[in-house]
């Protein structure tokens, strides 16, 4: 199968050297262009990503995941021939097949933005506490953005060039997920949700967002 070459996959990267090589290699089997935004990792994540075939954009200082996403989007838009932009997590919890299916839905003209949701089918196993926190995030995002989604904090998204160009992520830390939804709502873009599987491996659970981190998200949203 020929790799998709009108799409840039943006992978925000921070201290994921153990898995990012595999993630990038997996992406590169289907997507010709992968850009990892290394957010000043201290464990050589950027080099691992580069060895696996990604373009690596390196932040000189740690700025946060939201900033890394915006940098990756800027890179994608600066490249010739970019029609679609996909955001994808570096810790291996997303499936390349899901990303491909989402780009196909964009290509069919069905929507301008396709947002991954782990709650649309039964594939993803979520612990009760995490489910409660994610539900709360969804309620908040729906209430403040006017966009009704089932999963507000999913890092897997696909969008057209036009939508990517309209994004202006100013929430450097974790609150950017809600901010992106808000900007999609405000921009009047046609969006759909796509069922995706989020794989909670031991690695991603150990590394991933603790439930406590939702305190940070709420704080950043209130004091933006």
């Amino acid at each position, binding site marked *: 199968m*020929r*790799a998709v*070459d009108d799409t840039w996959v943006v992978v925000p990267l921070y201290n994921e050297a153990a898995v990012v090589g595999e993630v990038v290699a997996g992406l590169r089997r289907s997507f*010709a*262009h992968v850009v990892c*935004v290394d957010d000043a990792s201290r464990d050589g994540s950027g*080099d691992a990503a*580069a*060895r*696996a*075939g*990604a*373009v*690596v*954009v*390196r*932040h*000189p*200082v740690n*700025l946060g995941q939201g*900033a890394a996403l*915006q*940098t990756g989007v*800027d*890179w994608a838009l*600066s490249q*010739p*021939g970019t029609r679609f932009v996909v955001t994808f997590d570096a810790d291996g919890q997303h499936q390349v097949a899901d990303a491909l299916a989402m780009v196909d839905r964009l290509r069919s003209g069905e929507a301008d933005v396709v947002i991954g949701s782990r709650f649309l089918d039964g594939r993803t196993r979520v612990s009760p506490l995490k489910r409660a926190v994610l539900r709360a995030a969804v309620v908040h995002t729906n209430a403040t953005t006017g966009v009704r989604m089932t999963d507000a904090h999913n890092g897997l998204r696909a969008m057209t060039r036009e939508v990517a160009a309209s994004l202006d992520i*100013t929430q*450097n830390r974790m609150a950017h997920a809600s901010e992106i939804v808000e900007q999609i709502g405000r921009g009047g873009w046609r969006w759909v949700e796509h069922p995706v599987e989020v794989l909670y491996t031991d690695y991603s659970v150990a590394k991933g967002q603790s439930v406590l981190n939702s305190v940070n998200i709420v704080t950043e949203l209130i*004091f933006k």
Partner: protein
Amino acid sequence: MLCVSVCSTLGEVSGHDGGVESVLIKVLLMAGIGVVALLFVRGHATARHQAVRRVMVVAFAGLAIASLLFPQTWQSAAELLGVGRGTDLLLYATILVVLGFMVTSYLRTRDLQRQVTVLSRRLALDEAAAAQHQAAQAAQTAQTAAAPVAQVTEVPRTPVVVDEGPVFAALPAPRPGSWA
């Protein structure tokens, strides 16, 4: 936390004498908190804000000298406002000032953070674009001159960009058609 301390302060105030005078200090304190909150919502630090801040610093210094020269002023002011003691009034004023300081420094830090972000992003993108360009050139040179690959890849390995090495190695050839 600050809200808690201010609220308990207000509670304490009402516990002192009661009566008309204690309403006065409540109104004053609440107006002060309101001004701070307004600052917070208004956001960006402007030249006017800076001017106000400077006036406040001068006024603060003046007040400090005045309270050294006339220590009784605080006591009489406190009595006028229905607060028990001058030191209490001083405490309330200090809480307001701390609150204002927190807000203004938060706003300034946030603006600074945004500037750092923009600057860092520009730098990161420019470096990556330069690396991409150099890799493209290197690949082209290798093709046209049929030079040994090892020799060509040595070229960009200057001390400054040495850790960009893997990027060059990994970047695809320059012709768009050859990427897939």
